[in-house]
Each structure stands twice: as structure tokens, then as C-alpha cells.
């Protein structure tokens, strides 16, 4: 890395993060996944897509659906859609087991995605 004199932005972001997170701005189901990723302190790279389903070819190609959220976890080889499934996956894969900090409202777990 060079000794650059002026940095704009305080984070360094590339493609090293093991989890790629396809999300839509202000999508509650996506935010739910984001909260969990942060709670478990997982390194992830957000990829924002557009509201129109027809413009989400990349998500379709990666996950077979046009809904978000979608995560791709390179550490486990898992690609997964639907927030409830993702939450279950993250909890079982990265949760400490006794953690109740993540999701308490199980009734909402079956909610749809955007």
C-alpha cells in the first residue's frame, strides 16, 4: 500500500469479506439479516440492488430467485435466500447456542422478503 496523503472514507473495502450480502435499501428483511451479521461480528460485503425485480439478474443468477436478502458464505459454500432461512442458518452456524440476543420474535420469522 502506498503512503497516500489524503483518504476519503474511513473503511477499506474489497472482496476479501467471506460473506456477500445482497440487499435492498430500507428492506426490513434485509436489515434483520444485517443486524444478525453485525451481532455475530461477521465480515461481510454489502451489494445493493435496485427495487425493480426485473433489474435483479445478478441475484437470480447467484441464488435462483429475484428476492432479497441473499447471502453467499464462502467459508461454508452456502448460498441462501429468504430472511427466515438466513437467520436460522446464521444462528445455527455462528450463534453461540445460548445467545438470545439475536431474534426473540419467532412469530415474525416466517415473514416474506422483498
Amino acid at each position: 500500500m502506498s503512503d497516500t496523503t489524503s483518504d476519503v472514507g474511513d473503511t477499506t473495502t474489497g472482496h476479501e469479506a467471506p460473506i456477500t450480502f445482497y440487499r435492498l435499501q430500507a428492506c426490513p428483511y434485509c436489515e434483520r439479516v444485517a443486524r444478525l451479521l453485525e451481532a455475530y461480528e461477521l465480515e461481510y460485503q454489502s451489494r445493493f440492488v435496485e427495487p425493480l425485480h426485473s433489474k435483479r439478474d445478478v441475484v437470480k443468477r447467484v441464488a435462483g430467485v429475484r428476492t432479497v436478502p441473499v447471502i453467499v458464505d464462502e467459508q461454508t459454500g452456502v448460498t441462501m435466500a429468504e430472511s427466515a432461512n438466513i437467520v436460522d442458518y446464521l444462528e445455527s452456524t455462528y450463534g453461540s447456542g445460548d445467545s438470545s440476543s439475536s431474534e426473540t420474535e419467532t412469530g415474525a420469522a416466517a415473514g416474506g422478503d422483498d
Partner: protein
Amino acid sequence: MPEFDVVDLGPADHPDTGESAPDFTRPLVTDEFWEDRTLSELVGEDGGGQTIVVFTPMIGSFVGTYVWEELRDRDWADRADRVVGVTASTPYAVSEFITETDAPFDLFADPANDVADAYGISHDLDGMAGVSEPRVAFFAIDDEMTITASWVATDWPEFPEYDELEAEFGF
């Protein structure tokens, strides 16, 4: 020649050849999505080489449109190792622009125009309070983030002599 006035911006206070290009992280918009990317990491990808960073006024301006269409028509995407743009526009606007113009380039979205500020090429818009945008500017940088050549507009509007620019950039 018809008489017309252009706005004289004067010389910019930008980093010169041999100096380090200011690093930055912003959403890089492709034709399918956008994600935060850092320039210094981008320049090292795929074996490094030369990166051309192109600043244009915000999406919607004829200046930005003309520059990107010219670079598309001149096949810069194939002739340079890497070409990225920076514009003071939202990711949504940039995404739509890339789709509409078939621009084979990725553009950093920098609505607050901080990156142009860091490069010393920001200018305020008369009659649009609270809005600033980049001048048209081209910086060639190597994979060590050192500037190897540059062209910065001193008028508004102003376009480079593209043939000369290509010769200077070595392609």
C-alpha cells in the same frame, strides 16, 4: 466561429504526476449492483497495471454523457487495464445511466462530492445552491497509487483532445 462564453475555472490544485493519488472508498456501481470498494485495492486486482480514474460532472449533465459515450466508442474498456469513473450522483442515477448508455465502465457514486474535493477538482454550481461536482478530469495511476499522467479541465465545459490523451496514457 460563433462567439460564445465558457466559464473559466482556472487551474485546479490537483495532485501532479509522481504524487500519490488520494485513496477513497465509495459505492462502485456496476450494471447490476453497487458495493463499497476502495480504489487502492481495485488498482491491484488482476495483475495491477494502469488505472484511469475519470471524473465527470453529475449524471444528467451533457458533459458527463459526452465523455462516457466518447470513451465507450473509443474502446477504452479494452485498451486500458482499468477505467473507473467518479461522479457526484447517487448510485440509483449512476446505475440507470450505465444501463441507458451501455457504458462498459464502473462508476463510483459520490453524491457529497468529497472525492473531487480530495483531488482538488471540485467546483460549485452557480444557481444550484448546495451542489458541487467534479470538473472533467483524467488521472492515470499505477498499481502503487502513483499518478503517471493527468488532464484536468480549466474551463466549463471543456473536453480533452482525446487522441493526445490516449498518446499520453500510452494506448
